[in-house]
């Protein structure tokens, strides 16, 4: 049996890192179910993915890969079980699920806004639970599969900037670690991705542009790490050092830092 991935779902595929991930998979001839709210953007990405994967790869005796958009708001949690099965059915199988949806609404320095915080948790965290719990059940029963969660270096320590966003990513990283520990005995890989600053719509408003990285390069590294079944991957890798330093700083110093 070929160990190559054939079927993947990318949640949050309508732009930024998710879009680049779809193209990276298209290059390898993987069929992808594209999930997000903006249907027209999904169509655009699917169309481009089809041209990247080539008109048809029947020369290597495989059917041409499919790229199918599915409009869905990840906060409609109850839709997820049926939708995951429907996508899997239309693709003809499932080897890889990437949860990439995320929001980072701007928060002013002294702003405390429950509505914003709630929406961040709903998209970045509860949406991930809804999707990845289902993916975990499927893969556990199938005894194979790869789950990738796009977390962030923002979850490493609670800095001043965006308390709820950072919390959402810290929680997501912990959740992914738990999933990994549950699933590894079933042959399922769970990969935590911690990007630094990636040049997407999200990063536009961010004041911090240290080591700005292109979504294409990020996607290439993410898929590579997922293939190798790396447990935690910083993108680019330099952020691992920063993370180490951040974790080593005692709180009385850390609270004086201005970023």
């Amino acid at each position, binding site marked *: *049996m070929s160990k190559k991935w054939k079927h993947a779902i990318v949640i949050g595929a309508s732009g930024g890192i998710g879009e680049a991930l779809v193209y990276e998979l298209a290059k390898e001839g993987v069929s992808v179910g594209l999930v997000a709210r903006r249907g027209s953007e999904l169509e655009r990405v699917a169309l481009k993915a089809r041209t990247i994967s080539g008109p048809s790869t029947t020369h*290597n*005796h495989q*059917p041409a890969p499919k790229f199918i958009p599915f409009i869905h708001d990840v906060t409609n949690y109850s839709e997820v079980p049926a939708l995951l*099965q429907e996508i899997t059915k239309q693709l003809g199988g499932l080897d890889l699920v990437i949860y990439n949806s995320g929001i980072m609404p701007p928060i002013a320095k002294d702003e405390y806004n429950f509505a914003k915080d709630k929406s961040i948790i709903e998209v970045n965290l509860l949406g991930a639970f809804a999707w990845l719990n289902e993916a975990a*059940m499927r893969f556990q029963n*199938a005894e194979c599969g790869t789950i990738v969660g796009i977390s962030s270096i923002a979850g490493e320590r609670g800095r001043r900037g965006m308390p709820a966003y950072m919390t959402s990513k810290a929680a997501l990283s912990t959740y992914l670690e738990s999933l990994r520990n549950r699933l590894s005995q079933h042959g399922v890989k769970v990969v935590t991705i911690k990007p630094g600053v990636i040049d997407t719509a999200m990063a536009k408003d961010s004041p911090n542009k240290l080591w700005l990285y292109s979504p294409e390069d990020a996607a290439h590294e993410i898929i590579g790490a997922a293939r190798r079944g790396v447990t935690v991957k910083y993108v680019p890798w330099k952020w691992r050092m920063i993370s180490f330093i951040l974790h080593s700083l005692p709180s009385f110093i850390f609270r004086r830092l201005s970023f």
Partner: protein
Amino acid sequence: MSVLPIDHLEKIEGWGGAVSSFGYVYRPATVEGLREVFELARRSNRNITFRGSGRSYGDAALGAENIVLDTSRMNRILSWDPNSGIITMEPGVTIEQLWQYIIEDGWWPPVVSGTMYPTVGGCLGMNIHGKNNFKAGPIGEHVLSFDIMLPSGEIKTATPDSESELFYSAISGFGMFGVFTSITMQMKKVYSGLLHVKAWTTKNLHELFEIYQQHIPGSDYLVGWVDCISSDEKLGRSIVHQANYFKPGEDQNPAQSLRVSNQSLPNTILGIFPKSFVWMLLRPFTNNAGMKFINWLRVFVSRLPVVGKPVYEQSHAEFAFLLDYVPGWKKSYGQGGLIQYQSFIPKESAEKVFRKQIEMCQEAGLPPYLGVFKQHKPDKFLFTHSVDGFSLALDFKVTEKNREKLWSLCAKMNDVVLANGGRFYFAKDATLRPQDFKAFLGEETLKKFAELKKRYDPENILQTDLSRRLVL
């Protein structure tokens, strides 16, 4: 749309292990249970794939993300008349169950495959042939009637005379029209549990055809084991086995030889080695050099005056199910599994085509490790694989590395087969392309297929990985 319970998900492989997919497997034990699965499929908007023992080599009994309706638990014998030899059974009865049930009354299944593990339902789905195809025709010719449940839940009874269109298309119809729920067949009277067996070795392919021509008229069964590794003047050298029934009265103690315990395969090979471990011994040989040695050994042993004596007696089971001697032998092919390429060629061009195929394999550096040769006759079933001619079944080891090359080789061989009016067999197939499917069945049969599909399965619920690969 309702969600299917995830704990029904199973990875399902073709018997060769080279293709697989995941499906939601249900194993109902009753006709009522079958009906519930059809309803579940409708509720959850899923396709259904029928599966018996999964002894088809490729993707004929796989259905990615489908409901896989496995009939192996519907395995009761419903009635048996030892005077007339007429038996009625559920579709999940295996060939093994069947012969063991009837033999002590002096009967044997009229057509069996090289392994005894397939279900009767699966055998009708493919309309299997035996080593006696040139004489007995396919299994379908021994079916008196069957009941079939259509996707609508309606049960129809078909015989060669009533509902004959359904009869001649559901048998051979690779699970595309409905699920057999009950099958009535005529068994073959035998007067001994033994067969007279004769063996010949041939120096090359041409001699193989000569031996066949000479001995077909006097044979009940005839099969050739072809060494596909030797080349040039030795290309296609073979061992031919003939088996003939005993005449009434010839066996003085038929009750003895007909006992199931006297039929069974010995549990050890050469009396010492437990047969379930034999595949481990074979493993070092499943490379080109190793198989060359094995093929040489086979010919050598068969020439030894004692071991390979050319005339002997063998039980029905031993002769028919040689491949079951080495349980798990396919494991010796390793991780990537194996595929079998079997083509059926009209007699005028068979020798030329098979020579060409063996040469093509050798040139590609992909010599088949085993070739099995049989003679056939045409039949009336709609999706028949048979021809007035011969078939050669070639076993190939599949690896991650050779996969591309192997599939291309098969595609090239398909072109040769089609150019010579040959046919293919879904039970073995994993590599046919849609254009090959179209070409060998022909315009008229394809039109008929579409028409019957519309009549019996208008929602196109019944699909397999094979049908999705080929029926475009």
